[in-house]
């Protein structure tokens, strides 16, 4: 079983035609003439989702992006379930956004973020599989001149029950494809197709292996950074390190003399790129350009100044209310005990292992891009915009992505737009722009900074009477999606993720008086989506404070939480599951300390419990993590486990060692030496509990668990050290993860 994830036939041809000298042998770059008005429909395409070849190979088209989270395999499972095909014969490919535009978006949205890959498309994807199956069965029935009702499909074979005659899918695929063209709606009403009941699923819910592993263990997988096209040039870019600054001057004469250097080009008014035969030469030459920047108005910005601005906002009047009930203005009037704490969350970057890149061909008539993107359609729009060519003359080819984490969702004025602008200055030759790691960390779209002041009133019986949470910080929506932000009346509803009254990211506690509001304070650092987005800081604030409250109330943090969860059985169930598994009611082994946390986001309920020890005052060893996930239908439990355990690496790297700090208007961390990430020795074993499926629910799994990693560990850390850490990363307090 092999995933045939094609970049495009042309790249594969180009790749296999390459001699070891690195010289490309001429392979035609496609022109607009290759494309037709109706797109490229092949004769064995049963429908947009399914192509069945005569050898019974089933090609399933996947519109969403694969960046490691396993969506490609999960979506293929959904199609295959209804298609009743043989799982061992499946290969996949990404349709192109240009093809989608020509055909009227048969694959729906391409965007892959917010853990939406499966939860937003499960229904039409399964329908795609069901329709293809129906067409194949109909084609077989026609060939046999029998009733459709006497035929059934199973494991890639159609059987006529009365006669026992059978056809393999590959034998009737072309007929099915033709049928799809002439079929009359009254002859077969596709809308009335009934999808299989979960009780009958054979492929969904199975812990199947990923479809895309083979080429990832032998070096053959072509990532964006590896694309090689005939006659291709390479570019490396440097943008003014101070956000909002501009390019003042540079000297290119010397550089242009150097071996392999083709051209020095500017991009907009703030970046410069060297184009060369190899990337190494291009990147090295950047250091010899004697670049001078006009650093602009942000040149003196610091993280301290940003923090001061956010602190002011904690008591400002211009707040937007996210959740309220009871009488929060008067909740402290007669209270026995009041508690207050302020937490702060820093800027962070996603730092996927594959640095940003895009390869673009432009010749004045056609513009084509090969790009690892989480949003193929937005990338397509960007190519159209930046090339100033009609959509029919543009195309985008998606690739398997070497890590996304929100960084490769679309942002304006980012690496793809740069790549098109470079390509326009070397028309007729493809050029690959690859960012250095330094450029990646200097010009990311960062996890927003956020401060939070929490105040609570506790009764004599140790009950939470009221809670106020004031958030103050950066809005991703305002910074990265200004049009959407305007449509929300300049109020970013997503900052309340996990704190809402209901919906798919709700607060898990019933509190008599509640006020959660937000004051927007935007720094000059461009914000972006960072795996988990706003639930990360919100869960940290609330779940750490719940532990502080439990202590003030003189109660066990698990019991204290439960006392406030009567109306939130789903939140409570995951919390119970981790408490039970870690053995909360028995004491921890000697010198080990426990903590737990829960959250609800992306339609999934998640909880974590951890067990850690601290030696020499600052060396933190995490011995055990138990995590529970209730994502509704668990499409592939094996892949869910991997997403959950990986989430702790992402979340705890952030908690212990990662912050992007600002000095002189620029980000101070440029590579993994100053922006570290967890390694094998620091990574605890994660025991994952997948809760029993809730009917009719499809929650996300790629992101929610990250939110409970940090607070579970912080709560345990308090028990171990007696210290509440309220600003991050923990390395700034001298703590080391070992």
């Amino acid at each position, binding site marked *: 079983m092999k995933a045939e994830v094609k970049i495009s036939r042309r790249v594969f041809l180009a790749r296999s035609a390459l001699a070891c000298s690195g010289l490309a042998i001429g392979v035609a770059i496609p022109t607009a003439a290759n494309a037709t008005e109706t797109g490229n429909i092949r004769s064995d395409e049963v429908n947009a989702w399914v192509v069945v070849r005569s050898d019974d190979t089933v090609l399933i088209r996947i519109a969403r992006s694969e960046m490691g989270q*396993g969506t490609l395999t999960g979506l293929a499972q959904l199609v295959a379930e209804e298609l009743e095909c043989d799982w061992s014969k499946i290969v996949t490919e990404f349709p192109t956004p240009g093809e989608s535009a020509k055909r009227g978006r048969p694959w729906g949205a391409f965007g892959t973020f917010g853990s939406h890959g499966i939860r937003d498309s499960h229904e039409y994807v399964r329908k795609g599989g069901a329709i293809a199956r129906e067409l194949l069965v109909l084609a077989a029935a026609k060939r046999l001149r029998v009733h459709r009702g006497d035929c059934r499909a199973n494991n890639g074979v159609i059987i006529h029950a009365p006669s026992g005659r059978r056809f393999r899918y590959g034998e009737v695929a072309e007929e099915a494809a033709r049928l799809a063209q002439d079929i009359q709606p009254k002859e077969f009403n596709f809308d009335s197709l009934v999808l299989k009941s979960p009780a009958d699923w054979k492929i969904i819910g199975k812990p199947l292996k990923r479809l895309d592993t083979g080429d990832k263990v032998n*070096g053959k997988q072509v990532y964006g950074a590896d694309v090689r096209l005939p006659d291709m040039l390479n570019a490396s870019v440097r943008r003014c390190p101070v956000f909002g600054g501009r390019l003042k001057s540079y000297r290119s004469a010397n550089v242009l003399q150097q071996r392999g250097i083709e051209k020095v080009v500017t991009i907009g008014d703030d970046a410069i790129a060297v184009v060369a035969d190899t990337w190494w030469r291009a990147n090295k030459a950047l250091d010899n350009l004697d670049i001078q920047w006009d650093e602009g108005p942000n040149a003196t910005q610091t993280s301290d100044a940003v923090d001061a601005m956010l602190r002011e906002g904690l008591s400002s009047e211009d707040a937007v209310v996210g959740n309220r009930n009871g009488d929060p203005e008067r909740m402290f009037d007669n209270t026995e005990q009041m508690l207050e704490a302020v937490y702060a969350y820093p800027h962070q970057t996603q730092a996927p292992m594959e640095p940003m890149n895009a390869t673009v061909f432009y010749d004045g008539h056609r513009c084509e891009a090969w790009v690892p993107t989480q949003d193929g359609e937005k990338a397509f729009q960007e190519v159209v915009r930046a090339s100033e060519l009609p959509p029919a003359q543009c195309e985008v080819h998606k690739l398997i992505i070497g*890590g996304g984490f929100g960084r490769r969702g679309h942002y304006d004025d980012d690496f793809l737009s740069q790549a098109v602008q470079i390509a326009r200055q070397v028309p007729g030759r493809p050029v690959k722009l690859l960012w250095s*790691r330094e450029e990646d960390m200097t010009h990311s779209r960062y996890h927003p900074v956020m401060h939070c002041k929490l105040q609570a009133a506790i009764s004599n019986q140790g009950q939470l009477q009221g809670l106020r949470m004031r958030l103050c910080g950066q809005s991703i929506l305002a910074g990265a999606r200004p049009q959407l932000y305007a449509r929300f009346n300049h109020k970013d509803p997503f900052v309340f993720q996990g704190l809402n009254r209901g919906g798919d990211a709700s607060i898990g506690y019933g509190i008599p008086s509640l006020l959660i509001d937000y004051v927007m304070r935007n720094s000059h650092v461009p914000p972006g989506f960072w795996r988990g987005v706003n639930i990360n800081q919100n869960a940290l604030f609330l779940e750490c404070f719940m532990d502080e409250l439990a202590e003030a109330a003189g109660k066990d943090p698990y019991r204290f939480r439960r006392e406030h969860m009567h109306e939130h059985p789903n939140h409570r169930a995951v919390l119970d599951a981790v408490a039970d598994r870690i053995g909360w009611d028995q004491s921890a082994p000697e010198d080990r300390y426990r903590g737990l946390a829960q959250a609800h986001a992306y339609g999934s309920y998640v909880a974590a419990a951890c067990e850690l020890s601290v030696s020499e005052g600052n060396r933190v060893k995490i011995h055990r993590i138990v995590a529970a996930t209730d994502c509704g239908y668990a499409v592939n439990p094996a892949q869910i486990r991997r997403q959950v355990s*990986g989430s702790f690496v992402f979340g705890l790297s952030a908690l212990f060692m990662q912050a992007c700090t600002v000095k002189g208007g620029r980000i101070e961390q440029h*590579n993994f030496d100053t922006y570290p990430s*967890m*390694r094998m020795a620091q990574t605890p074993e994660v025991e994952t509990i997948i809760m029993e499926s809730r009917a009719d629910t499809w929650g996300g799994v790629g992101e929610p668990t990250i939110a409970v990693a940090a607070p579970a560990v912080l709560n345990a850390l308090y028990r171990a050290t007696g210290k509440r850490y309220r600003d991050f990363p923990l390395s700034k307090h001298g703590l080391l993860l070992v």
Partner: protein
Amino acid sequence: MIRLTVNDKEYSLDVEPDTPLLWVLREQLSLTGTKYGCGKAQCGACTVQVDGIALRSCVFPIAAASGKKITTIEGLERSGKLHKIQRAWIEADAPQCGYCQSGMIMATVALLETTPSPSDADIDDQITNICRCGTFQEVRQAIHLAAADQD
């Protein structure tokens, strides 16, 4: 001219002597299985074997590779058969995005050569690559599977 052997093939190359081995592999020899992740010996995505020793090729100048035998991820397969570490990786379904995995596998080749049955502590000591997807749990399992494979 710099002469070297990569995956049993001999090459003589005319490149600047300070070019890192990583970029020679990727750009001169089209062996793109070896990845660039940091360029500063931090992440291990570029790990290859030079005369049997695992090295981070992004900081290894080609001049120093002169006359040496280099093995990359593409050279692990022998007569169409995957290396037992690659098979173990498939068995454990280890990669997520996969970008760091060539480096992880090459680091494991070196580990198993010196320590055929590594303990968890050995693995912790010697596998120091970064994986942003967080596949360490599966990678550890894959290393144990490979060690147990007598083939």
